[in-house]
């Protein structure tokens, strides 16, 4: 592994999911650009960002898919789950509803993710807010139940954001089964796709 220390070791696909307006895009914005905007606007469909991070002397490229939480884009999200190695599930600590709904997202993730043992990180965002509807303990309990990592963050004050991503990536890297055969899997999938393409694009 040390041979590759200067090159990118692997590319990891990471998803950010959760209800609308819990701060998914803000978290990503903080992580990538270290900025915060009060009004980012709603995500259309999905956002895509990449960042290269160094973990234990290895460069790892992160391809982060920031999905839209809005109901009408819900049909799209399953298609992004494929081949993801990590998922960040975000709720808003000042909104109990967003916390309760997290269970649905977890179920969806389990249903559509095709990789066994995908690493999950549950993130309680917006801890800078005075009003709190979900306590830290509740969050931890929930994360334990689903064998997920947990952290509370604030994209606004920068609290915990970096840590959330680092921890997730660290955990994925520690589980080589998740990413070592990436290339093999991809080529296999590509050929599969080609076959279906042939069938569907026939104009005759």
């Amino acid at each position, binding site marked *: 592994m040390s041979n590759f220390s200067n090159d990118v070791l692997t590319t990891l696909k990471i998803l950010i999911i959760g209800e609308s307006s819990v701060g998914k895009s803000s978290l990503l914005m903080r992580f990538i650009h270290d900025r915060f905007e009060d009004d980012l606007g709603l995500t259309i469909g*999905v956002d895509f960002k990449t960042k290269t991070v160094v973990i234990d002397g290895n460069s790892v490229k992160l391809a982060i898919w920031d999905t839209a939480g809005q109901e009408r884009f819900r049909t799209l999200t399953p*298609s992004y789950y494929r081949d993801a190695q990590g998922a960040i599930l975000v709720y*808003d600590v000042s909104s109990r*509803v967003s916390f309760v709904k997290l269970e649905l997202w977890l179920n969806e993730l389990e249903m559509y993710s095709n990789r066994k043992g995908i690493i999950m990180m549950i993130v309680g965002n917006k801890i800078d807010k005075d009003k709190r509807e979900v306590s830290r303990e509740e969050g931890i309990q929930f994360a334990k139940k689903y064998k997920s990592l947990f952290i509370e963050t604030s994209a606004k004050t920068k609290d915990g954001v970096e840590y959330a991503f680092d921890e997730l990536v660290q955990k994925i890297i520690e589980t080589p089964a998740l990413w070592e055969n990436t290339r093999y899997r991809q080529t296999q999938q590509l050929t599969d796709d080609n076959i279906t393409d042939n069938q569907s694009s026939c104009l005759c």
Partner: protein
Amino acid sequence: MENLNISGTTSNSHILQENTCQKHKDDNSEFNDKDLRLNSGKNETDENVSTSEINTQNLTSNDLNMEVESISNISETDKFAITAICAVSLHNLFGNKWDEEFCLRTIKCILINLQLPQKVEPIMFELIKGDDSHPIDPYIKLLKSQPFFKREGLQSIICNLILLAIHDGKYDARWRVLIQHIAVLFNLELKKIDEYERKLINCLLQKTTELSLEEKKTAASRKLMAKTKRYALIGLATVGGGALIGVTGGLAAPLIIGGLTSIIGSTALLTTLGSVVVGSLFGVAGGGLTGYKMHKRVGDIEEFEFHELRSLNSPEVSDIKGVSINTLKELHVTIVISGWIKSTSEENYTKPWLNLINGREQYYLKYESSYLLELGKAMEYIFSFVASVATQEVLKFTVLSGLVSAIAWPAGLLGLASVIDNPWGVCLRRSAQVGKQLAEVLLTRSHGNRPVTLFGYSLGARVIYYCLREMSERKNCEGIVQDVILIGAPCTAQANEWNKFKKVVAGRIVNGYCRGDWLLRFLYRTLSIAVDGVAGLQEIELQDSKIYNVDLTDMVTGHSDYPERMTDILAHIGIPVLQEVPLSLEAPLLDDISSSEENIS
């Protein structure tokens, strides 16, 4: 529901969403208003039928205008879905390295046209460039579920894409393939695309200046339009205040910037991408292809001319009689190339293709008549020897069953070999040169900046083969040729040779072959090429979504059948032909081969 749930805590976003909803409603009502206004405008035109000869076309352009304008009333969800559909299609169609630049340029163009925020760009690029192919169905489902699609349907989207494709005066073949691909995804008939293109041409030819809806209604403006049109017809370069940017020369019609602006409407396309419009979409000054002169001669070609192929009994053509010649122009062009001829009359070149209606603008290539005639006569001589159908069937099955080297040719046939071998050899050499000349024509875009589809059988297919080969070795060869259909091609079947054509051809590469083509087999009996295989005798062993092998063994007895059976063959391949439902072809077009084999046995 979602809104309500969140509203308790994140009031900001709630308001935002509510606003969008509100805005949606506004948009809708606004649209309805516009709809009404347009309708009233149409009524008025109806009343004035007699005042202007171009009235009917005005109507269509109004219709179209409405369709395209309404695309600005589209939500971001729709825009995202449309762009994503294009991006994934581009990935699936043009995943090769040489097409990457085109793909990115295209998607950028769509993004700008739809005015999607910048942040969407990376995801679209990822959809195009990513190793994985993303499923396209979710986006289609999403788009179909939206009110915009239910209201407008596909037409406005497709029209807008066509306009985007030609906005810079060049219609890239890959754009057309993309549009056709999207049409297929939505189960839209391909001939609809032709229809939309025609409508757009009509529309573009009408619009001379940027006029508001109210202005358009006035008789004065209509008069102006009629006048401008007349000017345009005689090829005057400037008209009043309206800028007439491109003149395609002579009879070809100019496309006028005002027309585009008013059609694309409020979108930012023209201002952002620059308003360079449409000089040579229809071909170089003069008569386009028919006026082509060989300035640069390849080899010692003696004859190389394009002529219009027009089947006069085609209803499509008679439909448009009385309409100015401009409307016969199409946004794509078809060239057909025949194999051998039996006499010098034009009919020899045109007859096999008489029922082909791959758009209205079709040309045939007349080349090296004297040599093709010589070959034709030699073939006739050979056929007089094997006159009976039975003999031909025997020969066919000899070829079908025998190993390459083990075919025992009848001694009589071998005795005649000297008659045909020489003209055949000459024609092989000449058709290769003609192919290179054709490449020259296409590379210089003498046919206009629009996609071209090539059809050819026998030596005509060889012309196409060498044309593609020549093009594949040149720069900027991409995006000119849309589809190629080679039937009974006397050229190699080597996969790595055909592999190069993927770069040149945007759409389909069709190789129609007959395993029992005894004449072709006979002609190749001594040539080394036979070892690699002849394309007209076997399939091209290349796994690619662009390559289509069509086995015609059950449709023809051999080479000589191609001209007579061309209509059936084209229909079998899936090319639009005039349907005079041939009795011999009882089975549906794309019936699987097994069933037709049963019929034979």
